[in-house]
């Protein structure tokens, strides 16, 4: 009897906890839907019927780069309004895992922060019967350098100083090298806390590629997805870095521009041009415009120009690719892949990007991408 009463009380408590949790999640989903409708309003300009569905049908599995996750989400939302028969599941597992899944034939296309390596192209001939995997640049994005220095609202840095900060050679915000670049700023006597990614990441790869290209003598590392410099602080994921910059005085870090929302200040980069470039979507597109296509055949891999002379071009960018077969895509998913990829490369698709803090691919390159997609088989 006593035991029964006890269990009943426990049940009541449990029920209370569950209903409490429900109330919390209910609030959570409210917020989410609010956000979505906000995000939607910026993209509501796109007319329905922008995507051509043709005979596309079924489920499309894709995975890869988390850097383009928000862009894909925005696209899928628009696309699935027009093509209700196609379901697209994009799993942001990271570029490496995405490419692996694609090469094993688990997914219809992959998203990646960096173009395929030659050995990966060779492997792809197994899944692409009669063809090979190709890189299609779809999303550009500025990598912002966020900083948190009390009393400083704008900060200009050149590549050499940036490299020295992240390499632990410059350790205080009132260092002469920073002062020289920012004569008017009131730089405090504060320890610099440079944060890098603790996980392997395409953002790290692109950031260090930039330092290698522009400040070789101050950045003596070979680059790659894993951070190589010693010392400094680290955190997991771009959101982790942004959080640390927000809450740590003296912090500086790098992440995609979309994470620099809500009040994180970003560094202006000194380039070859007369005035320093701000980290904005437009400035990133300007810099990507001077990129060269280095892929051969159908492959559209880009080589970024890290030292643009053009005024306002922000050179610290990353371009993410969609990876699919040029020939020999699976017959059951081919119509859907073609239809979705041509939608995201279309004018409407690329227009969606600016709303999500991504940079559209410049016209000259995206037109080539469109013609490549129409030739997929």
């Amino acid at each position: 009897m006593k035991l029964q009463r006890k269990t009943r009380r426990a049940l009541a408590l449990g029920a209370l906890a569950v209903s409490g949790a429900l109330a919390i999640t209910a609030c959570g989903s409210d917020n989410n839907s609010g956000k979505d409708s906000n995000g939607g309003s910026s993209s509501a300009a796109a007319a329905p019927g922008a995507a051509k569905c043709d005979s596309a049908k079924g489920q499309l599995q894709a995975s890869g780069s988390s850097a383009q996750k928000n862009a894909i989400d925005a696209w899928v939302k628009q696309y699935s309004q027009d093509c209700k028969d196609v379901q697209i599941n994009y799993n942001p597992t990271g570029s490496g895992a995405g490419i692996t899944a694609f090469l094993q034939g688990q997914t219809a296309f992959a998203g990646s922060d960096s173009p395929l390596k030659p050995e990966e192209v060779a492997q792809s001939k197994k899944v692409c019967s009669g063809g090979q995997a190709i890189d299609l640049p779809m999303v550009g994005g500025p990598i912002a350098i966020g900083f948190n220095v009390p009393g400083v609202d704008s900060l200009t840095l050149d590549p050499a100083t940036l490299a020295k900060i992240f390499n632990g050679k410059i350790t205080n915000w009132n260092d002469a090298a920073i002062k020289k670049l920012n004569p008017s700023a009131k730089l405090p006597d504060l320890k610099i806390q440079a944060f890098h990614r603790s996980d392997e990441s395409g953002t790290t790869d692109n950031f260090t590629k930039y330092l290698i290209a522009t400040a070789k003598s101050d950045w003596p590392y070979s680059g790659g997805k894993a951070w190589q410099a010693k010392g400094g602080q680290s955190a997991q994921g771009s959101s982790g870095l942004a959080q640390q910059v927000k809450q740590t005085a003296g912090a500086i870090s790098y992440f995609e521009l979309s994470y620099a929302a809500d009040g994180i200040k970003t560094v202006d980069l000194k380039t070859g041009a007369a005035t320093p470039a701000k980290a904005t979507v437009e400035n990133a597109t300007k810099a990507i415009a001077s990129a060269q296509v280095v892929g051969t055949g159908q492959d559209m891999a880009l080589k970024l120009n890290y030292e643009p002379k053009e005024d306002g071009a922000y050179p610290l960018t990353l371009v993410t690719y969609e990876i699919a077969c040029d020939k020999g895509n699976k017959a059951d998913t081919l119509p859907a892949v073609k239809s979705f990829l041509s939608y995201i490369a279309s004018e409407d698709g690329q227009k969606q990007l600016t709303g999500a803090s991504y940079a559209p691919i410049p016209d000259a390159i995206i037109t080539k991408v469109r013609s490549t997609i129409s030739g997929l088989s």
Partner: protein
Amino acid sequence: MDTSTQQSDAAPPHTAQGPAAHKRAVRGAGRPGDRIFLGLSRGSGILLLVIMAAIAVFLTYRAALAISKDDGNFLTTFEWNTSLLPPQFGIAVLAFGTVVSSIVAMALAVPVAVGIALFLTHYAPRKLSGPIAYVIDLLAAVPSIVYGLWGALVLVPHLNGLYGWLDEYFGWTGILSWQGGAPRSLLTVGILLAIMILPIITNVSREVFRQVPRMHEEAALALGATRWEVIRMSVLPFGRSGVISASMLGLGRALGETMAVATVLSPTFDIKASLLDPGGGTFAQNIASKFNEATEFGQDALIASGLVLFVITLLVNGAARMIINRRKEYSGANA
């Protein structure tokens, strides 16, 4: 504990019939139901061993592949870069960070947990001990990523004061000096892990203290002992091995904790002299951080590091078992 006493109660009549009867009972006396059940249970026992062996062989094979290509020394290299040509990786930093953060966690959690358990069993009024035990159970149900987020967003920004204080008064020791970086260090990880392993140590210790024979306590009271002396003379010696096993359960969780550590620590591949300086890393955290973008070879290397964690856990558990066995005369098993 209950079941063991029940078994020993039931044992005498069984043995009285002699070993032959016992043997027949095990063989199942030829009845089909018994034979089927015997086959099923034996089969599942064998299956478990086969699965374990298969996992072990697979992991060892892939680990061996990775280690054979390691350009550095797998045990001493301060670096984890599997995409270099040739690759360089070593577990020194990870082993150090795993052991140190777990030691910090145990040092903080065990005294508090034992205190809570004693309070609940010997001091708290019944009305209070129920709800407190319930809240502690709830702590155990919180997913580790939530602890990690709480640690990164709330705990870390609020530790500056403690770190400054430690540096001022204990900075001279070297292991508690602070350079003023954001407190994402092994000490913070230890504090967070201590909170995470508190419930399991508390719960098991509480159960053990409840088993203390009433006679022991009353005997101590009859000798004129105060309540503290009762606890010191009868409860703690009786519960010692139970507390050790409880701590080992907690230690197991601390050694293998992944997401909470990955969110709170600033992992780097060097060993800092001070616990307060950001840096270091643990096995599980390193695997979680690197696995997503790892190539197949990188995954092999991570598997190799996981095997080392496995070995460390085995050693720790073995040591704990030895301690418990040596103190068997105090334990509840033969009381």
